[in-house]
């Protein structure tokens, strides 16, 4: 048993389970617990949250004792930030700027997370896909999208 030689997969997963379980169990105390006969809104989440904490402790604890210690792969920051950044930008822009700008920005920012980003490829692709989605979702399916910043 050595801290620096722990199984990081289980170590991290254990902490994650403990945190999530504790979060739900602790915040459920804001709601009425009720009784076993008439369960209040806090009952089920408290039980599940406590169970999750116990499981988390087991996973966390065993990370120091496992025989084949596994290490997780490195975090791939570039795709992670670009993809989720693109998604957040889309969410941020779709209201004020409309679908056209939000789509194009999302495609370009997202594409930047891939290998081998080439403007020559990605700009026509973004333009084309934006046109296609507007064709499908706005005109084809009639979903209510605001297209441009100036439209309603």
């Amino acid at each position, binding site marked *: 048993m050595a801290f620096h030689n722990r199984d990081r*997969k*289980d170590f*991290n*997963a254990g902490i*994650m389970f403990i945190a*999530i*379980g504790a979060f*739900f169990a602790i915040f*459920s105390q804001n*709601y*009425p617990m009720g009784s076993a*006969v*008439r*369960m209040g*809104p806090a009952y*089920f*989440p408290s039980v*599940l*949250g406590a*169970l*999750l904490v116990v*499981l*988390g402790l087991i*996973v966390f604890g065993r990370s120091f004792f496992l025989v084949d210690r*596994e290490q*997780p*792969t490195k975090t*791939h920051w570039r*795709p*992670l930030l670009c*993809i*989720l950044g693109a*998604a*957040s930008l*889309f*969410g*941020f822009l*779709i*209201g004020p700027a409309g679908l056209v700008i939000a*789509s194009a920005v*999302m*495609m*370009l920012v*997202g*594409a930047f997370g*891939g*290998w*081998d*980003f080439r403007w020559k*490829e990605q700009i026509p*692709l*973004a333009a084309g*896909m*934006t046109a296609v*989605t507007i064709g499908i*979702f706005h005109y084809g399916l*009639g*979903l*209510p*999208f605001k297209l441009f910043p100036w439209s309603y």
Partner: protein
Amino acid sequence: MTELIQHLTLGFTVALSFQNLIYCFIGVLLGTLIGVLPGIGPVATIAMLLPITFNLPPTPALIMLAGIYYGASYGGSTTAILVNLPGESSSVVTCIDGYQMGKQGRAGPALAIAAIGSFFAGTVGTILIALFGPPLAELAFEFGAAEYFSMMVLGLIAAVVLASGSLIKAIGMILVGLLAGLVGTDVNSGIARYSFGVSELSDGIGFVSVAMGMFGFGEIIANLGQTSETKHVEVSKVHSLMPSPRDVKMSIGPILRATVIGTIFGILPGSHTVIAAFSSYTMEKKLAKNPERFGKGAIEGVAGPEAANNAAAQTCFIPLLTLGIPTGAVMALMVGAMTIQGIAPGPQVMTQKPDLFWGMIASMWIGNGMLVLLNLPLIGMWVQFLKIPYRLLFPGILLFIAIGAYSLNNSHFEVYVAALFGYFGYYSSKWGCEPAPLILGFVLGQLMEENLRRAMLISRGDPSVFFTRPISLGMLLVAFALLLMVIAPQVRKKRAEVLTAPAD
């Protein structure tokens, strides 16, 4: 018997209407396309394409979604045979012998046998749903809250026992899913739980956004994290599709046996088509007179697994349609789709909406037929799609996911939820926690709480109600036995062997 014919007649009348045929066709076509393209699975696809179905009536919407699902398993086998890439996890097994056949210039017969085997298995699956659907639904009407609760426990346990990876972490992910599913207004008290004053959260976290985040965003990030683009793919040439009489003769047995295996695995809660395919492969290898042919292009190794995974893909609709219990991530999405359409999945679907139920079943058979007729001639086209590099593919997928999430409620909040779960999904799978159990727990969270409350209310707070009612006790015992089985050392070893091999 006459009832069965009546039901099927109704089903075919519905399924053969022009509109439904078109949507069935679109569904299987899109499904095949997705199955062919590696790097995006059926869960993300169905989630992504859900908005397309919003403006449709329920029947064509569900017909199309089901078509996407079984179409994907067809498409996956095409790429498995031609380029040794399983487009979808259930065709991992097909790669082994299918690709070898392709290398020997026998890609055509391999594809044809895969298609025929799948079609046969699909037909049997459809008939079985029609036969066993009504009695199972009858039985489900007898279920009280205690039975439903125990059944969900069994379903969740079975799902993780057969899932790959660590059992304890899978149970943890179920609990996370169940808890996340509880966010939002509590039906009994009207209290908005864990909403922290955010009005969007008081309606609960959108299930579809969670699925899109974990399976869509999460998978794309993981794919891009791999060092480089897949190398230039070498596509086997398809000379002639006709299998020789010897091929056909050798495939009949495996197809028949695999149909049985696939059916069983499909109905069992939580099973995966992958396991069905793998079991069939192992079985054929054991039964073969000269097992050393396996891995070197044995046609039984294509016929069996393909039939098995298709049979399982059909019959896994049985628990969903009759009991309202999803058995996997895809079925959980179907629950989401039904809810969006205003249908509560469960035994009442069959009695209250017979046209939907039987129409969907008939359409599955028609869709399977379409796949055979369409895909064999279209193979050349699918191969072209395979050549699209991923760097040109994923930005479009991203956009579709974002639009899909947004259009669920016309709210940008859902896009943020998807992004957040993408982040969570990326890290949790890095730490060996699979996303599928979470999705399953998420769908069942409120339902489970509801039934637990009701059962305890009726029993006046006596928890023994779960152990004194025979059906409930039976289900809990099976769940317990499953857990014990996994903990047993021999099974544990075997499970690791089977499950590490088809890791996708």
